[in-house]
Protein backbone atom coordinates (compact mmCIF):
# COMPACT_ATOMS: atom_id res chain seq x y z
CA UNK A 1 0.00 0.00 0.00
CA UNK A 2 2.89 2.37 0.47
CA UNK A 3 3.91 4.79 -2.20
CA UNK A 4 6.69 7.14 -3.09
CA UNK A 5 6.14 10.90 -3.06
CA UNK A 6 8.09 13.22 -5.30
CA UNK A 7 7.94 16.89 -4.46
CA UNK A 8 9.37 19.30 -6.95
CA UNK A 9 9.81 23.07 -6.77
CA UNK A 10 7.05 23.48 -4.22
CA UNK A 11 6.33 27.05 -3.12
CA UNK A 12 3.80 27.36 -0.30
CA UNK A 13 1.96 30.59 0.39
CA UNK A 14 -0.32 32.05 3.06
CA UNK A 15 -2.03 34.72 0.98
CA UNK A 16 0.89 36.72 -0.42
CA UNK A 17 3.34 35.50 2.25
CA UNK A 18 5.71 32.88 0.88
CA UNK A 19 6.19 30.53 3.83
CA UNK A 20 8.17 27.75 2.18
CA UNK A 21 10.24 28.12 -0.97
CA UNK A 22 11.29 25.73 -3.70
CA UNK A 23 11.23 22.42 -1.93
CA UNK A 24 12.30 19.43 -3.95
CA UNK A 25 12.39 16.12 -2.17
CA UNK A 26 11.88 12.47 -2.64
CA UNK A 27 10.02 10.53 0.02
CA UNK A 28 10.74 6.83 -0.17
CA UNK A 29 8.06 4.21 0.36
CA UNK A 30 8.09 1.89 3.38
CA UNK A 31 10.35 4.15 5.32
CA UNK A 32 10.20 6.94 7.84
CA UNK A 33 11.21 10.38 6.71
CA UNK A 34 11.87 12.88 9.49
CA UNK A 35 11.64 16.64 9.01
CA UNK A 36 13.60 18.74 11.49
CA UNK A 37 14.39 22.42 11.81
CA UNK A 38 13.82 25.44 14.05
CA UNK A 39 10.30 26.67 14.87
CA UNK A 40 8.60 28.68 12.17
CA UNK A 41 10.70 27.32 9.34
CA UNK A 42 7.66 25.78 7.68
CA UNK A 43 7.79 22.09 8.58
CA UNK A 44 4.10 21.92 9.46
CA UNK A 45 3.21 24.02 6.46
CA UNK A 46 5.13 21.68 4.18
CA UNK A 47 3.65 18.58 5.78
CA UNK A 48 0.12 19.91 5.40
CA UNK A 49 0.72 20.60 1.74
CA UNK A 50 1.38 16.88 1.22
CA UNK A 51 -2.28 16.01 1.78
CA UNK A 52 -3.81 19.30 0.70
CA UNK A 53 -4.74 20.26 4.24
CA UNK A 54 -2.85 23.49 3.67
CA UNK A 55 -5.59 24.94 1.51
CA UNK A 56 -8.14 24.58 4.32
CA UNK A 57 -6.77 27.88 5.63
CA UNK A 58 -8.35 30.82 3.77
CA UNK A 59 -5.98 32.33 1.24
CA UNK A 60 -3.48 29.49 1.48
CA UNK A 61 -2.15 28.02 -1.77
CA UNK A 62 0.82 26.25 -3.31
CA UNK A 63 2.76 26.28 -6.57
CA UNK A 64 4.72 23.31 -7.79
CA UNK A 65 4.23 19.59 -7.88
CA UNK A 66 3.58 16.84 -5.37
CA UNK A 67 3.48 13.55 -7.21
CA UNK A 68 2.14 10.49 -5.45
CA UNK A 69 2.35 7.27 -7.39
CA UNK A 70 2.60 9.08 -10.72
CA UNK A 71 -0.32 11.37 -9.99
CA UNK A 72 0.16 15.10 -9.32
CA UNK A 73 -1.89 15.85 -6.19
CA UNK A 74 -2.33 19.42 -7.33
CA UNK A 75 -3.17 18.51 -10.90
CA UNK A 76 -6.39 19.79 -12.47
CA UNK A 77 -9.44 17.81 -11.49
CA UNK A 78 -7.83 16.18 -8.46
CA UNK A 79 -10.26 16.17 -5.54
CA UNK A 80 -8.57 17.26 -2.30
CA UNK A 81 -10.99 15.04 -0.39
CA UNK A 82 -9.73 12.02 -2.33
CA UNK A 83 -6.12 13.06 -1.69
CA UNK A 84 -6.76 13.13 2.04
CA UNK A 85 -8.21 9.64 1.88
CA UNK A 86 -4.93 8.28 0.59
CA UNK A 87 -2.64 10.54 2.63
CA UNK A 88 -3.62 10.38 6.30
CA UNK A 89 -2.53 12.74 9.02
CA UNK A 90 -1.92 12.70 12.78
CA UNK A 91 -1.79 16.05 14.53
CA UNK A 92 0.35 17.42 17.31
CA UNK A 93 -2.40 17.42 19.90
CA UNK A 94 -4.44 14.25 20.27
CA UNK A 95 -7.92 15.14 19.07
CA UNK A 96 -10.40 12.26 19.18
CA UNK A 97 -13.94 13.31 18.31
CA UNK A 98 -15.53 14.20 21.66
CA UNK A 99 -19.00 13.02 20.71
CA UNK A 100 -17.85 9.52 19.77
CA UNK A 101 -16.91 6.37 21.63
CA UNK A 102 -13.51 4.73 21.17
CA UNK A 103 -15.13 2.30 18.75
CA UNK A 104 -16.75 5.05 16.68
CA UNK A 105 -13.59 7.13 16.70
CA UNK A 106 -11.70 4.33 15.00
CA UNK A 107 -14.46 4.03 12.43
CA UNK A 108 -14.83 7.80 12.05
CA UNK A 109 -13.31 7.90 8.57
CA UNK A 110 -15.98 5.49 7.35
CA UNK A 111 -18.89 6.57 9.51
CA UNK A 112 -18.44 10.23 8.64
CA UNK A 113 -18.36 9.34 4.97
CA UNK A 114 -21.64 7.45 5.34
CA UNK A 115 -20.01 4.16 4.48
CA UNK A 116 -22.17 1.24 5.62
CA UNK A 117 -20.40 -1.63 7.31
CA UNK A 118 -21.78 -4.88 8.67
CA UNK A 119 -21.36 -5.15 12.40
CA UNK A 120 -18.87 -8.01 12.01
CA UNK A 121 -16.86 -6.07 9.43
CA UNK A 122 -16.84 -3.00 11.65
CA UNK A 123 -15.67 -5.07 14.62
CA UNK A 124 -12.88 -6.49 12.50
CA UNK A 125 -11.75 -3.07 11.28
CA UNK A 126 -11.76 -1.68 14.82
CA UNK A 127 -9.73 -4.55 16.20
CA UNK A 128 -7.28 -4.53 13.30
CA UNK A 129 -6.68 -0.79 13.53
CA UNK A 130 -6.41 -0.71 17.31
CA UNK A 131 -3.96 -3.61 17.21
CA UNK A 132 -2.06 -1.73 14.51
CA UNK A 133 -1.90 1.28 16.80
CA UNK A 134 -0.81 -0.83 19.77
CA UNK A 135 -3.89 0.15 21.73
CA UNK A 136 -6.12 -2.90 21.49
CA UNK A 137 -5.02 -4.54 24.75
CA UNK A 138 -5.62 -1.37 26.74
CA UNK A 139 -9.08 -0.55 25.45
CA UNK A 140 -10.64 -3.80 24.24
CA UNK A 141 -12.98 -3.98 27.23
CA UNK A 142 -14.16 -0.38 27.03
CA UNK A 143 -14.69 0.27 23.35
CA UNK A 144 -18.04 1.94 24.02
CA UNK A 145 -16.52 4.57 26.32
CA UNK A 146 -15.81 8.10 25.05
CA UNK A 147 -12.42 8.49 23.39
CA UNK A 148 -11.87 11.70 25.33
CA UNK A 149 -11.62 9.66 28.54
CA UNK A 150 -8.29 8.07 27.58
CA UNK A 151 -4.87 9.35 28.61
CA UNK A 152 -3.01 11.68 26.25
CA UNK A 153 -0.77 8.93 24.89
CA UNK A 154 -3.72 6.59 24.42
CA UNK A 155 -5.68 9.34 22.68
CA UNK A 156 -2.79 9.90 20.29
CA UNK A 157 -2.65 6.18 19.50
CA UNK A 158 -6.42 6.26 19.03
CA UNK A 159 -5.89 9.02 16.47
CA UNK A 160 -3.30 6.88 14.74
CA UNK A 161 -5.76 3.96 14.71
CA UNK A 162 -8.36 6.30 13.25
CA UNK A 163 -5.92 7.41 10.57
CA UNK A 164 -4.88 3.88 9.54
CA UNK A 165 -8.46 2.57 9.59
CA UNK A 166 -9.08 4.31 6.27
CA UNK A 167 -6.03 2.57 4.82
CA UNK A 168 -4.05 5.53 3.56
CA UNK A 169 -0.93 5.03 1.50
CA UNK A 170 1.00 7.66 3.38
CA UNK A 171 0.85 8.73 7.00
CA UNK A 172 1.87 12.27 7.95
CA UNK A 173 2.63 13.02 11.60
CA UNK A 174 3.18 16.55 12.88
CA UNK A 175 5.08 16.39 16.15
CA UNK A 176 2.93 13.48 17.29
CA UNK A 177 4.78 13.05 20.59
CA UNK A 178 5.39 16.63 21.67
CA UNK A 179 2.34 16.64 23.95
CA UNK A 180 3.15 13.24 25.43
CA UNK A 181 5.18 11.82 28.31
CA UNK A 182 8.34 9.77 27.61
CA UNK A 183 6.62 6.39 28.03
CA UNK A 184 3.81 7.21 25.60
CA UNK A 185 6.43 8.65 23.27
CA UNK A 186 8.31 5.39 23.30
CA UNK A 187 5.09 3.49 22.62
CA UNK A 188 4.45 5.66 19.59
CA UNK A 189 8.01 5.37 18.33
CA UNK A 190 7.75 1.58 18.53
CA UNK A 191 4.51 1.82 16.68
CA UNK A 192 6.08 3.86 13.90
CA UNK A 193 8.67 1.14 13.47
CA UNK A 194 5.82 -1.32 12.95
CA UNK A 195 3.84 0.94 10.67
CA UNK A 196 6.64 1.60 8.24
CA UNK A 197 6.38 -1.98 7.07
CA UNK A 198 3.12 -0.98 5.42
CA UNK A 199 3.06 2.77 5.12
CA UNK A 200 5.17 5.63 3.91
CA UNK A 201 5.61 7.78 6.99
CA UNK A 202 6.62 11.42 7.23
CA UNK A 203 7.15 12.82 10.70
CA UNK A 204 7.91 16.34 11.88
CA UNK A 205 9.79 16.39 15.15
CA UNK A 206 11.64 18.80 17.39
CA UNK A 207 13.30 15.95 19.15
CA UNK A 208 16.65 15.17 17.58
CA UNK A 209 17.00 11.84 19.37
CA UNK A 210 13.62 10.85 18.08
CA UNK A 211 14.57 11.68 14.52
CA UNK A 212 17.78 9.68 14.79
CA UNK A 213 16.05 6.77 16.54
CA UNK A 214 13.13 6.25 14.22
CA UNK A 215 13.81 7.70 10.82
CA UNK A 216 15.57 6.38 7.77
CA UNK A 217 15.97 9.69 6.04
CA UNK A 218 16.02 13.18 7.48
CA UNK A 219 15.36 16.54 5.91
CA UNK A 220 16.59 19.73 7.56
CA UNK A 221 14.55 22.89 7.04
CA UNK A 222 15.87 26.31 7.92
CA UNK A 223 14.87 29.93 7.74
CA UNK A 224 17.14 32.92 7.31
CA UNK A 225 15.07 35.34 9.36
CA UNK A 226 11.52 36.32 10.22
CA UNK A 227 9.48 37.11 7.14
CA UNK A 228 11.81 35.05 4.97
CA UNK A 229 10.62 31.78 3.50
CA UNK A 230 11.71 28.45 4.96
CA UNK A 231 13.84 26.21 2.78
CA UNK A 232 14.88 22.61 2.67
CA UNK A 233 18.59 22.90 3.39
CA UNK A 234 19.63 19.33 3.08
CA UNK A 235 18.17 15.87 2.93
CA UNK A 236 19.97 12.60 3.31
CA UNK A 237 20.10 9.30 5.13
CA UNK A 238 19.52 9.96 8.83
CA UNK A 239 22.96 8.63 9.80
CA UNK A 240 24.64 10.99 7.39
CA UNK A 241 22.65 14.00 8.55
CA UNK A 242 23.53 13.34 12.18
CA UNK A 243 27.16 12.32 11.73
CA UNK A 244 28.44 13.90 8.59
CA UNK A 245 26.12 16.51 7.09
CA UNK A 246 27.31 18.43 4.08
CA UNK A 247 25.99 21.82 5.16
CA UNK A 248 27.36 23.73 8.13
CA UNK A 249 23.91 24.90 9.32
CA UNK A 250 22.73 21.32 9.55
CA UNK A 251 25.70 20.35 11.63
CA UNK A 252 25.16 23.30 13.96
CA UNK A 253 21.51 22.44 14.34
CA UNK A 254 21.81 18.73 14.99
CA UNK A 255 24.66 19.24 17.43
CA UNK A 256 22.61 21.84 19.34
CA UNK A 257 24.96 24.71 18.47
CA UNK A 258 22.45 26.83 16.69
CA UNK A 259 22.39 30.59 16.18
Amino acid at each position, binding site marked *: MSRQIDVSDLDIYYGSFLAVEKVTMEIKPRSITALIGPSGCGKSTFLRSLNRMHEVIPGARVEGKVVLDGQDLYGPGVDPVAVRRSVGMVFQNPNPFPTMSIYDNVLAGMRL*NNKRLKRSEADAVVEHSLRGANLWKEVQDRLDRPG*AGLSGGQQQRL*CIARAIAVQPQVLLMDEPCSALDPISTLAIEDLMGELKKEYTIVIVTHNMQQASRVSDRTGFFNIEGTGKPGKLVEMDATDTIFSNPSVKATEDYVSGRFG
Partner: protein
Amino acid sequence: MSSPNDTGTRTEDRPGDGRTSPEDPGAAVLTRYQPPSLAASMHASLPRWAGAAASALGVLVAAALVAVTDVHVALAVVVGAVVGVAAFVVASRVVEGERAATDRFVTALVTMAFVVALLPLVSVVWTTVSRGLARFDGAFFTQSMYNVIGEGGGAYHAIMGTLIITGVATLISVPIGTLTAIYLVEYGGDNRLSKVITFLVDVMTGIPSIVAGLFSLALFTLVLGPGYRLGVMGSVALSVLMIPIVVRAVEEMLRIVPARLRESSYALGVPKWLTIVKVVLPTAASGIASGVVIAIARVMGETAPLLVTVGLTASTNFNPFEGRMAVLPVFAYYQIITPGIPPQAFIDRAWTSALLLILFVMVLNVGARVLARALAPKTR
Protein backbone atom coordinates in the same frame (compact mmCIF):
# COMPACT_ATOMS: atom_id res chain seq x y z
CA MET B 1 28.64 39.78 31.37
CA SER B 2 31.58 37.65 32.29
CA SER B 3 32.41 34.66 30.22
CA PRO B 4 32.56 31.31 32.00
CA ASN B 5 36.30 31.24 31.62
CA ASP B 6 37.53 34.31 33.49
CA THR B 7 37.41 33.25 37.12
CA GLY B 8 38.97 36.35 38.68
CA THR B 9 36.04 38.57 39.58
CA ARG B 10 33.18 36.18 39.18
CA THR B 11 31.71 36.40 42.64
CA GLU B 12 31.65 40.21 42.60
CA ASP B 13 29.55 40.66 39.48
CA ARG B 14 27.09 37.86 39.87
CA PRO B 15 23.73 39.43 39.13
CA GLY B 16 22.24 38.20 42.42
CA ASP B 17 24.71 40.18 44.47
CA GLY B 18 23.79 43.41 42.75
CA ARG B 19 20.75 43.80 45.01
CA THR B 20 22.63 45.86 47.54
CA SER B 21 25.04 47.57 45.15
CA PRO B 22 24.74 51.39 45.18
CA GLU B 23 25.03 51.57 41.37
CA ASP B 24 21.69 49.80 40.95
CA PRO B 25 18.88 52.16 42.05
CA GLY B 26 16.24 49.63 40.96
CA ALA B 27 17.53 47.10 43.45
CA ALA B 28 17.50 49.73 46.21
CA VAL B 29 13.86 50.55 45.49
CA LEU B 30 12.96 46.88 45.49
CA THR B 31 14.61 46.37 48.90
CA ARG B 32 12.46 49.13 50.38
CA TYR B 33 9.32 47.48 49.04
CA GLN B 34 10.12 44.00 50.19
CA PRO B 35 6.96 42.11 51.09
CA PRO B 36 6.42 41.58 54.83
CA SER B 37 7.52 38.25 56.14
CA LEU B 38 4.95 35.49 56.17
CA ALA B 39 4.90 35.49 59.96
CA ALA B 40 4.10 39.23 60.06
CA SER B 41 1.23 38.84 57.60
CA MET B 42 -0.57 36.23 59.68
CA HIS B 43 -3.66 37.45 61.43
CA ALA B 44 -6.76 36.23 63.16
CA SER B 45 -9.99 36.02 61.19
CA LEU B 46 -13.60 36.78 62.01
CA PRO B 47 -15.74 33.78 62.92
CA ARG B 48 -17.89 32.29 60.19
CA TRP B 49 -21.10 33.67 61.69
CA ALA B 50 -19.83 37.25 61.54
CA GLY B 51 -21.60 37.95 58.23
CA ALA B 52 -24.89 36.57 59.52
CA ALA B 53 -24.51 38.54 62.74
CA ALA B 54 -23.88 41.77 60.84
CA SER B 55 -26.92 41.13 58.62
CA ALA B 56 -29.01 40.44 61.73
CA LEU B 57 -27.80 43.67 63.29
CA GLY B 58 -28.80 45.57 60.16
CA VAL B 59 -32.26 44.01 60.12
CA LEU B 60 -32.69 44.71 63.83
CA VAL B 61 -31.74 48.35 63.44
CA ALA B 62 -34.15 48.74 60.54
CA ALA B 63 -36.94 47.01 62.46
CA ALA B 64 -36.31 49.09 65.57
CA LEU B 65 -36.41 52.31 63.53
CA VAL B 66 -39.74 51.34 62.01
CA ALA B 67 -41.19 50.29 65.36
CA VAL B 68 -40.01 53.18 67.49
CA THR B 69 -39.82 56.18 65.17
CA ASP B 70 -42.06 57.02 62.22
CA VAL B 71 -39.39 57.17 59.48
CA HIS B 72 -40.26 55.67 56.10
CA VAL B 73 -39.56 51.95 55.69
CA ALA B 74 -37.16 52.56 52.79
CA LEU B 75 -35.08 54.95 54.87
CA ALA B 76 -35.03 52.48 57.76
CA VAL B 77 -33.77 49.75 55.42
CA VAL B 78 -31.01 51.99 54.11
CA VAL B 79 -29.93 52.98 57.63
CA GLY B 80 -30.00 49.32 58.71
CA ALA B 81 -27.86 48.30 55.73
CA VAL B 82 -25.31 51.04 56.40
CA VAL B 83 -25.09 50.16 60.10
CA GLY B 84 -24.73 46.43 59.37
CA VAL B 85 -22.02 46.92 56.77
CA ALA B 86 -20.15 49.45 58.89
CA ALA B 87 -20.14 47.14 61.90
CA PHE B 88 -18.95 44.26 59.73
CA VAL B 89 -16.14 46.23 58.13
CA VAL B 90 -14.96 47.84 61.39
CA ALA B 91 -14.88 44.46 63.11
CA SER B 92 -12.90 43.04 60.21
CA ARG B 93 -10.52 45.99 60.23
CA VAL B 94 -9.80 45.51 63.94
CA VAL B 95 -9.43 41.75 63.85
CA GLU B 96 -8.18 40.96 60.36
CA GLY B 97 -6.38 44.02 59.09
CA GLU B 98 -6.88 46.45 56.25
CA ARG B 99 -6.80 44.24 53.18
CA ALA B 100 -9.28 41.77 54.61
CA ALA B 101 -11.56 44.65 55.62
CA THR B 102 -11.60 45.94 52.03
CA ASP B 103 -12.46 42.45 50.87
CA ARG B 104 -15.29 42.23 53.41
CA PHE B 105 -16.62 45.64 52.37
CA VAL B 106 -16.75 44.77 48.68
CA THR B 107 -18.24 41.36 49.45
CA ALA B 108 -20.97 43.06 51.45
CA LEU B 109 -21.70 45.51 48.60
CA VAL B 110 -21.90 42.73 46.02
CA THR B 111 -24.15 40.65 48.23
CA MET B 112 -26.50 43.57 48.78
CA ALA B 113 -26.58 44.36 45.07
CA PHE B 114 -27.53 40.75 44.45
CA VAL B 115 -30.36 40.95 47.00
CA VAL B 116 -31.62 44.18 45.45
CA ALA B 117 -31.57 42.62 41.99
CA LEU B 118 -33.43 39.61 43.29
CA LEU B 119 -36.17 41.58 45.02
CA PRO B 120 -38.29 42.37 41.94
CA LEU B 121 -38.09 38.76 40.81
CA VAL B 122 -39.17 37.43 44.19
CA SER B 123 -41.93 40.02 44.33
CA VAL B 124 -43.23 39.13 40.86
CA VAL B 125 -43.16 35.40 41.57
CA TRP B 126 -44.80 35.88 44.95
CA THR B 127 -47.59 38.11 43.62
CA THR B 128 -48.28 35.87 40.66
CA VAL B 129 -48.28 32.68 42.68
CA SER B 130 -50.45 34.03 45.47
CA ARG B 131 -53.03 35.49 43.08
CA GLY B 132 -52.79 32.81 40.43
CA LEU B 133 -53.40 29.86 42.72
CA ALA B 134 -57.12 30.71 42.99
CA ARG B 135 -57.87 29.30 39.55
CA PHE B 136 -54.95 26.85 39.30
CA ASP B 137 -57.40 23.97 39.02
CA GLY B 138 -58.39 21.16 36.69
CA ALA B 139 -61.00 23.17 34.86
CA PHE B 140 -58.44 25.84 33.98
CA PHE B 141 -56.38 23.28 32.12
CA THR B 142 -59.24 21.41 30.46
CA GLN B 143 -61.91 23.96 29.56
CA SER B 144 -61.98 26.79 27.10
CA MET B 145 -64.02 29.97 27.46
CA TYR B 146 -66.59 28.69 25.01
CA ASN B 147 -70.05 29.65 26.31
CA VAL B 148 -68.58 30.90 29.58
CA ILE B 149 -69.95 34.25 30.68
CA GLY B 150 -68.95 34.70 34.31
CA GLU B 151 -67.21 32.26 36.61
CA GLY B 152 -65.67 28.95 35.57
CA GLY B 153 -64.15 28.26 32.20
CA GLY B 154 -60.45 27.91 31.63
CA ALA B 155 -57.51 28.62 29.38
CA TYR B 156 -57.27 25.28 27.60
CA HIS B 157 -57.75 27.06 24.26
CA ALA B 158 -55.09 29.64 25.09
CA ILE B 159 -52.62 27.03 26.35
CA MET B 160 -53.03 25.08 23.12
CA GLY B 161 -52.76 28.28 21.10
CA THR B 162 -49.53 29.27 22.83
CA LEU B 163 -48.05 25.80 22.32
CA ILE B 164 -49.07 25.62 18.66
CA ILE B 165 -48.02 29.12 17.73
CA THR B 166 -44.63 28.96 19.48
CA GLY B 167 -44.21 25.45 18.07
CA VAL B 168 -44.73 26.67 14.51
CA ALA B 169 -42.51 29.68 15.18
CA THR B 170 -39.79 27.28 16.34
CA LEU B 171 -40.22 25.16 13.21
CA ILE B 172 -39.73 28.29 11.11
CA SER B 173 -36.90 29.86 13.10
CA VAL B 174 -34.64 26.94 13.95
CA PRO B 175 -33.83 25.85 10.38
CA ILE B 176 -33.45 29.43 9.12
CA GLY B 177 -31.43 30.50 12.14
CA THR B 178 -29.22 27.42 12.18
CA LEU B 179 -28.49 27.53 8.47
CA THR B 180 -27.69 31.24 8.68
CA ALA B 181 -25.29 30.59 11.54
CA ILE B 182 -23.68 27.72 9.64
CA TYR B 183 -23.17 29.99 6.67
CA LEU B 184 -21.66 32.73 8.82
CA VAL B 185 -19.27 30.47 10.70
CA GLU B 186 -18.38 27.77 8.21
CA TYR B 187 -18.63 29.39 4.80
CA GLY B 188 -18.89 33.17 5.02
CA GLY B 189 -15.65 33.91 6.79
CA ASP B 190 -15.06 37.62 6.50
CA ASN B 191 -16.77 38.19 3.18
CA ARG B 192 -19.14 41.02 2.47
CA LEU B 193 -22.33 38.96 2.51
CA SER B 194 -21.64 37.64 5.97
CA LYS B 195 -20.88 41.13 7.24
CA VAL B 196 -24.22 42.31 5.85
CA ILE B 197 -26.02 39.35 7.40
CA THR B 198 -24.38 39.95 10.77
CA PHE B 199 -25.42 43.58 10.62
CA LEU B 200 -29.01 42.68 9.72
CA VAL B 201 -29.16 40.13 12.51
CA ASP B 202 -27.99 42.82 14.94
CA VAL B 203 -30.71 45.13 13.68
CA MET B 204 -33.31 42.39 13.94
CA THR B 205 -32.33 41.76 17.55
CA GLY B 206 -33.38 45.27 18.39
CA ILE B 207 -36.72 45.30 16.57
CA PRO B 208 -39.57 46.19 18.96
CA SER B 209 -41.92 43.25 19.15
CA ILE B 210 -44.94 45.25 18.00
CA VAL B 211 -43.07 46.01 14.79
CA ALA B 212 -42.60 42.30 14.22
CA GLY B 213 -46.35 41.88 14.68
CA LEU B 214 -47.16 44.68 12.26
CA PHE B 215 -44.69 43.25 9.75
CA SER B 216 -46.44 39.91 9.81
CA LEU B 217 -49.84 41.58 9.60
CA ALA B 218 -48.73 43.65 6.63
CA LEU B 219 -47.18 40.63 4.92
CA PHE B 220 -50.31 38.52 5.21
CA THR B 221 -52.52 41.44 4.27
CA LEU B 222 -50.49 41.86 1.09
CA VAL B 223 -50.85 38.19 0.21
CA LEU B 224 -54.30 37.30 1.48
CA GLY B 225 -56.03 40.64 1.64
CA PRO B 226 -57.16 42.56 4.71
CA GLY B 227 -58.96 41.28 7.74
CA TYR B 228 -57.24 37.99 8.33
CA ARG B 229 -56.32 36.76 11.81
CA LEU B 230 -54.45 33.45 11.73
CA GLY B 231 -52.31 31.50 14.14
CA VAL B 232 -49.54 31.28 11.57
CA MET B 233 -49.43 35.07 11.35
CA GLY B 234 -48.47 35.07 15.00
CA SER B 235 -45.87 32.38 14.36
CA VAL B 236 -44.30 34.48 11.62
CA ALA B 237 -44.23 37.50 13.92
CA LEU B 238 -42.57 35.46 16.66
CA SER B 239 -40.09 34.05 14.13
CA VAL B 240 -38.95 37.55 13.29
CA LEU B 241 -38.07 37.94 16.96
CA MET B 242 -36.71 34.44 17.35
CA ILE B 243 -34.47 34.09 14.29
CA PRO B 244 -31.82 36.58 15.44
CA ILE B 245 -31.67 34.95 18.86
CA VAL B 246 -31.22 31.53 17.28
CA VAL B 247 -28.59 32.82 14.84
CA ARG B 248 -26.60 34.40 17.66
CA ALA B 249 -26.84 31.34 19.90
CA VAL B 250 -25.92 28.83 17.20
CA GLU B 251 -23.16 31.06 15.84
CA GLU B 252 -21.56 31.28 19.25
CA MET B 253 -21.75 27.53 19.72
CA LEU B 254 -20.29 26.75 16.30
CA ARG B 255 -17.42 29.15 16.86
CA ILE B 256 -16.28 27.36 19.99
CA VAL B 257 -16.06 24.01 18.23
CA PRO B 258 -12.27 23.65 17.97
CA ALA B 259 -10.85 24.02 14.46
CA ARG B 260 -8.71 20.94 15.04
CA LEU B 261 -11.84 18.77 15.11
CA ARG B 262 -12.79 20.01 11.67
CA GLU B 263 -9.22 19.48 10.49
CA SER B 264 -9.03 15.94 11.77
CA SER B 265 -12.26 15.19 9.96
CA TYR B 266 -10.90 16.70 6.72
CA ALA B 267 -7.71 14.72 7.21
CA LEU B 268 -9.77 11.54 7.17
CA GLY B 269 -11.04 12.47 3.73
CA VAL B 270 -14.44 13.69 4.90
CA PRO B 271 -15.94 16.46 2.75
CA LYS B 272 -16.76 19.79 4.34
CA TRP B 273 -20.53 19.43 4.44
CA LEU B 274 -20.34 16.01 6.06
CA THR B 275 -17.87 17.39 8.55
CA ILE B 276 -20.35 20.11 9.45
CA VAL B 277 -23.29 17.73 9.70
CA LYS B 278 -21.54 14.91 11.53
CA VAL B 279 -18.78 16.51 13.54
CA VAL B 280 -19.45 20.20 14.08
CA LEU B 281 -23.20 20.10 14.73
CA PRO B 282 -23.11 17.09 17.10
CA THR B 283 -20.24 18.64 19.03
CA ALA B 284 -22.19 21.87 19.38
CA ALA B 285 -25.55 20.15 19.86
CA SER B 286 -25.84 20.72 23.56
CA GLY B 287 -25.27 24.45 23.28
CA ILE B 288 -27.49 24.77 20.23
CA ALA B 289 -30.35 22.93 21.92
CA SER B 290 -30.23 25.05 25.03
CA GLY B 291 -29.91 28.21 22.94
CA VAL B 292 -33.00 27.26 20.97
CA VAL B 293 -34.99 26.45 24.10
CA ILE B 294 -34.07 29.77 25.65
CA ALA B 295 -35.12 31.52 22.43
CA ILE B 296 -38.50 29.77 22.67
CA ALA B 297 -38.87 30.85 26.29
CA ARG B 298 -37.98 34.37 25.29
CA VAL B 299 -40.77 34.74 22.69
CA MET B 300 -43.41 32.62 24.38
CA GLY B 301 -44.67 35.47 26.55
CA GLU B 302 -44.79 38.05 23.75
CA THR B 303 -48.11 39.87 23.81
CA ALA B 304 -48.12 42.78 21.40
CA PRO B 305 -47.26 40.94 18.16
CA LEU B 306 -49.85 38.26 18.91
CA LEU B 307 -52.48 40.84 19.84
CA VAL B 308 -52.38 42.27 16.33
CA THR B 309 -51.96 39.01 14.41
CA VAL B 310 -53.92 36.20 16.01
CA GLY B 311 -56.59 38.11 17.93
CA LEU B 312 -58.58 36.22 20.50
CA THR B 313 -61.31 33.63 20.53
CA ALA B 314 -63.23 31.87 23.24
CA SER B 315 -63.12 28.41 21.71
CA THR B 316 -60.32 25.99 21.00
CA ASN B 317 -58.75 26.19 17.55
CA PHE B 318 -56.04 23.71 16.66
CA ASN B 319 -55.52 24.94 13.12
CA PRO B 320 -52.97 27.72 12.79
CA PHE B 321 -53.98 28.23 9.16
CA GLU B 322 -57.60 29.03 9.81
CA GLY B 323 -59.27 31.55 12.05
CA ARG B 324 -58.34 33.31 15.21
CA MET B 325 -56.49 31.63 18.01
CA ALA B 326 -56.21 32.37 21.69
CA VAL B 327 -52.81 32.58 23.37
CA LEU B 328 -52.03 32.95 27.06
CA PRO B 329 -50.60 36.48 27.11
CA VAL B 330 -53.41 37.94 25.01
CA PHE B 331 -55.97 35.97 26.99
CA ALA B 332 -54.54 37.34 30.25
CA TYR B 333 -54.54 40.85 28.81
CA TYR B 334 -58.20 40.80 27.80
CA GLN B 335 -59.32 39.12 31.00
CA ILE B 336 -57.87 41.88 33.11
CA ILE B 337 -58.59 44.80 30.74
CA THR B 338 -62.22 43.93 30.00
CA PRO B 339 -63.50 42.05 33.03
CA GLY B 340 -67.15 40.97 32.96
CA ILE B 341 -69.36 40.07 35.83
CA PRO B 342 -68.28 39.04 38.40
CA PRO B 343 -64.95 40.80 37.76
CA GLN B 344 -62.98 38.67 40.22
CA ALA B 345 -63.46 35.57 38.02
CA PHE B 346 -61.82 37.40 35.11
CA ILE B 347 -58.99 38.80 37.23
CA ASP B 348 -58.29 35.37 38.69
CA ARG B 349 -58.10 33.82 35.24
CA ALA B 350 -55.66 36.52 34.17
CA TRP B 351 -53.34 35.85 37.12
CA THR B 352 -53.44 32.11 36.60
CA SER B 353 -52.54 32.63 32.94
CA ALA B 354 -49.61 34.78 34.00
CA LEU B 355 -48.53 32.15 36.51
CA LEU B 356 -48.74 29.50 33.83
CA LEU B 357 -46.56 31.55 31.47
CA ILE B 358 -43.92 31.94 34.16
CA LEU B 359 -44.07 28.21 34.77
CA PHE B 360 -43.67 27.49 31.06
CA VAL B 361 -40.62 29.73 30.87
CA MET B 362 -39.17 28.17 34.00
CA VAL B 363 -39.72 24.65 32.71
CA LEU B 364 -38.11 25.62 29.40
CA ASN B 365 -35.07 27.07 31.12
CA VAL B 366 -34.63 24.04 33.33
CA GLY B 367 -35.26 21.87 30.28
CA ALA B 368 -32.51 23.73 28.44
CA ARG B 369 -30.06 22.87 31.21
CA VAL B 370 -31.10 19.24 31.32
CA LEU B 371 -30.88 19.00 27.54
CA ALA B 372 -27.48 20.65 27.50
CA ARG B 373 -26.18 18.22 30.07
CA ALA B 374 -27.68 15.23 28.27
CA LEU B 375 -26.20 16.19 24.91
CA ALA B 376 -22.81 17.41 26.13
CA PRO B 377 -19.81 15.31 25.01
CA LYS B 378 -18.84 12.91 27.76
CA THR B 379 -15.43 11.82 28.95
CA ARG B 380 -16.34 8.74 31.00
